[in-house]
């Protein structure tokens, strides 16, 4: 009995793969209807943080080159600006991050840039949650009023440009 159980145990031990599915969760925009012209959205320039990644994996943020490490802080500055500095957003609700990449950008750099943007939002939400509720954002119960309020205060608006045909 124990022999058979051991045999099976060894088999499952060998075949088990314990890899966990991890990654950056992203919501894609719906596919635009070709018959309907894209809606014209009046977007104040100051509310949009423009992030470009070129085919050499270099960053251009608001038309200025930037190192990857500085992106999180700049994004946070943008979404937490609340109308103070003229170049950054009016309010956290209005703030948008526009991400545009080249077809030659590597997946590694794209995922890294996306990660920095998500990190900026997570940190901003966390700081807000701590100051308002005295708890970190991660500790707020799922779908609770507090969590929804924090999400509403800092909605993650990362817009990806439609791919351009060359």
């Amino acid at each position, binding site marked *: 009995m124990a022999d058979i159980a051991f045999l099976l145990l060894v088999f499952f031990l060998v075949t088990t793969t314990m890899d966990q599915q*991890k990654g950056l969760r992203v919501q894609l925009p719906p596919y635009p209807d070709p018959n309907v012209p894209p809606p014209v959205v009046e977007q104040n320039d100051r509310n949009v943080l423009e992030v470009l990644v070129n085919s050499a994996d270099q960053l251009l943020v608001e038309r200025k080159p930037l*190192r990857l490490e500085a992106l999180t802080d700049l994004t946070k500055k943008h979404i937490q600006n609340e109308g103070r500095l003229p170049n950054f957003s009016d309010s956290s609700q209005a703030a948008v991050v526009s991400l545009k990449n080249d077809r030659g950008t590597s*997946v*590694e750099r794209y995922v890294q840039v996306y990660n920095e943007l998500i990190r900026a939002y997570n940190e901003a939400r966390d700081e807000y949650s701590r100051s308002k509720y005295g708890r970190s954002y991660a500790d707020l119960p799922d779908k609770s009023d507090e969590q929804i309020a924090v999400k509403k205060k800092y909605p993650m608006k990362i817009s990806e440009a439609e*791919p351009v045909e060359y």
Partner: protein
Amino acid sequence: MSKFKKNGGKESPAINTSALPDIVFMLLFFFMVATKMRDPSVLVRTNVPTVSEVEKIVKKSWVNHILVGPPLNTAEFGNSPRIQFDDKFGDVEGANGVGVFITMKKNEQPEGIRDYLTTSIKADRSVRMGLIQDIKQELRKINSLKLLYSASEGDVEE
């Protein structure tokens, strides 16, 4: 001193092994449950990027995987990145395309959860975004909008 001398005839008692099958069975059941049997043979190299803000997938069965990367068998398939789903190569468009595959996977699931299905793109870090963009466009066309860029957890390295 004779206190510490061993009495010649006394043997140490045998360990009671009657509980061993129980323990083995417990481990067996654990691994049986934890094992994911359908492990498709991997045809492409997927060395995923390392980032800090990863999320874990809770419902593993609600995820469909698309692998993108240079083929492992370079002699036969060359160096340029290929798309793999299940255990064969696929294309971006057409009858063997991403859209057809994901739609097929969607139809296998009960009606209620089809909108919750996530597509995981497990792409090698060297792959260019052009290919990923094409896949994303195909996913948008079939209105499968939940996406996960597979990545491992760690510090971002420049």
